[in-house]
């Protein structure tokens, strides 16, 4: 019971508490945690993709390196093992996550070591690392506090009205209508103030200013692509130079010109604090211009927040600000 109470308390309080710095992790373990655990376990059973326990024994290292670094190319070539894996994972393709060859080799070593640990009778499989929640962003914090305050107020009013029925009496309708007028002015006034305060700060880019950098983004099931030139079709992916590792200077203003090459996606930018900073939809046939000031140095992660199919949660790409 105590454990349940403590767990719940930590869930309830964690949005309001600044996170402690996570312990440093081995590079391969970190990459595995970041890019692989969404679909794979090592000895923990099948997820979307196969359980990787013993995979270093079943497959050749060179094949694994290529599969980890260029899965899209191997699927396009109809590599028989890749095609079989695709069928076994309900047609959810292994995405190209931009892993370098050196990282892939480190990952293979890590998987081999973890497989041995998982198969040892006295050793439990390693528990997946769950990162602590980030602290709330300023907008999210205001929204949550406002919501909770108004919820408490509504609850108190409803309880008071319910309790009042213990002492029935007639209600002075004129007084009640006066109270309703006050409620109307307070509610409408509050909303008008909120409108005035927020409509001037919408995220839509104006025509009167120019960003320091323009980055073109194409989304498709289940990958993002960065380029410094426009990408308007799938064919462009092989002709336009793609930026594998996007780096942007700290303090710069960057405009992401986002489109989709197939279905509706979303381009959601998470900052180094792992908080959602800004987003826009990626739509086939349209370019959405998302302008962001990159004020903090560090690693930024892009996720897709518009459901786009079986591999939706796999869509991600990184960029670095320094």
């Amino acid at each position, binding site marked *: 019971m105590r454990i349940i109470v403590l767990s719940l308390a930590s*869930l309830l309080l964690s949005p309001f508490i600044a996170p402690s710095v996570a312990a440093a992790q081995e590079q391969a373990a970190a990459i595995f945690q970041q890019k692989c655990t969404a679909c794979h376990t090592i000895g923990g059973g099948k997820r979307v993709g196969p359980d990787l326990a013993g995979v270093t024994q079943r497959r050749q290292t060179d094949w694994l390196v290529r599969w980890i670094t260029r899965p899209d190319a191997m699927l396009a070539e109809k590599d028989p093992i890749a095609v079989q894996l695709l069928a076994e994972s309900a047609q959810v393709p292994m995405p190209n996550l931009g892993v370098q060859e050196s990282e892939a080799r480190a990952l293979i070593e890590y998987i081999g070591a973890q497989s041995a640990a998982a198969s040892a009778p006295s050793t439990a499989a390693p528990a997946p690392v769950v990162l602590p929640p980030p602290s709330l962003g300023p907008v999210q914090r205001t*929204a949550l506090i406002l919501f909770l305050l108004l919820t408490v107020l509504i609850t108190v009013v409803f309880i008071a009205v319910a309790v009042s029925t213990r002492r029935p009496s007639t209600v002075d309708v004129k007084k009640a209508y006066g109270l309703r007028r006050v409620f109307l002015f307070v509610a409408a006034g509050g909303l008008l103030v909120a409108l005035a305060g927020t409509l001037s700060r919408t995220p839509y880019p104006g025509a009167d200013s120019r960003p320091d950098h323009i980055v073109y983004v194409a989304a498709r099931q289940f990958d993002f692509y960065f380029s410094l030139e426009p990408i308007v079709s799938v064919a462009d992916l092989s002709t336009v130079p793609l930026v594998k590792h996007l780096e942007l200077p700290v303090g710069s203003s960057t405009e992401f010109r986002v489109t989709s090459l197939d279905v509706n996606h979303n381009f959601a930018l998470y900052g180094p604090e792992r908080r959602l900073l800004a987003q*826009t939809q990626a*739509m086939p046939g349209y370019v959405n211009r998302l302008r962001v000031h990159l004020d903090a140095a560090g690693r930024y992660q892009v996720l897709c927040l518009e459901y786009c199919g079986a591999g939706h*949660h796999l869509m991600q790409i990184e960029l670095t600000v320094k």
Partner: protein
Amino acid sequence: MRQISPLTLSWILVVALLFPILIVLGIYMRTVQAEQLPSLQSWFYPVMTLHGLGMVGLWFTAPLACVADALKRYVKPSSTIGWLAFGGTVVGIVLLLVCVLVGRFAAGWYFLYPLPLMGGWPQWSTVLFLVALTVLGVAWLLWSLDLLRAIAQRYSLTHALAWHYLAGRNEPEVPPLVLISTVSLIVCVAALIAAVVVIVLFFADMSGGIKTDSLLMKNLTFFFGHVIVNLSMYLGAAVTYEVLPEYTTRPWRTNRVVALSWNAVLVIVLLAYFHHLYMDFAQPTTVQYIGQIASYASSIPAAVVTIFGALLLVYRSSMRWGLASVLFFVGLAGWAIGGVGAVIDSTITVNAVLHNTLWVPAHFHSYFLMGLVLMTLAYFYHCCQGAAAHAERGVSRWWIMGLTLFGGYGFLLMFYLAGALSVPRRYAIYPAEVSYGAGYAGAAAAFAAMFLVGLLWLLGRMWKRWAETSAAPT
């Protein structure tokens, strides 16, 4: 002793059967997100589609069935059309079950174009899905039109919309149920026509390869989705207006303010849907501003007129507290709380960091699960209670409400907290950046299970009341 019509009883049975199953599907989803059930993870998105379609469809038809039943006090809807709508809904549900469970169709409940055509599932399941929507759309359109026809037989359009109250005349008297039903059914027809256009454009692409503009399809889809969800809420409010006075023994009549409020809703609900497209920057900016203004404006009639009016109705009244009246009352509170969450999210600058996070299911589950669902169950229980030979008794109702409220609001709180912490919605598995979402999902699953126990207890009690009626001598 009031009798329940066979049609209303059939709807109660459908809700009693489907709702717990759909809750179990929801618990499955939160359990998968909590890193449990790894062997069933690949079913997440088909189940998500079934859960969403099922809940939206069920909680549109169930309050509509309540309204159709309650309207019989004033007008005469066609029983044949009522049964046709029931049959069409059952056929549509069966077709959806086949395309999702056999065809693994998984485009989500609002199936944004062109995902249904590019999702990797067999083409037949997409065709079956569109056929199911066609069957449901035709059935619901006929039902809505028949209810409007029944209202029109007794009231002219201007009277049904209570325009004479705006002009200062109170005769003929129009019950709020008739006014709200008319407003809701008019917007319902508009929403269903938009859905028909979407389905036709899908078929045109599938059969003729005619590509459609994705932004146009998004506008049509969200117009349909937004309106259908909101009018479901209004239908719940309509039966509350009709039944709650029976427990407070005070009348709740149409007056100029009520008439003005619901006529404003008729316009506002058609414009507020733009808030679903805030993050589509290609949409004209003026339209985005209209979306925020209309979303804010929509809260005024609901809060200042309907919810304030309900509180005034109950305040210091000789309220007859029982399961039905408690459910109506806490349902109104759920609507208010969900409305606050919705208005906050309808602010463009806030939406930029909350859109498609778990804040979104947080607010719509608030006014659906703890608002509309409770109001609809209240009406159903009211019917069983009214039909029962004995007065309500027993303390189990407090256990039922305790489990329902604690489980329901605990479940919702996990959504709100995780949404504020940037955890995306609709993720089968959380990537490392948002892996803390798993903890909130696990707690939410436990709370939802608690809600389910309360619901099953309530349904059991409803069944018992019905059985008492059947056993009572006539």
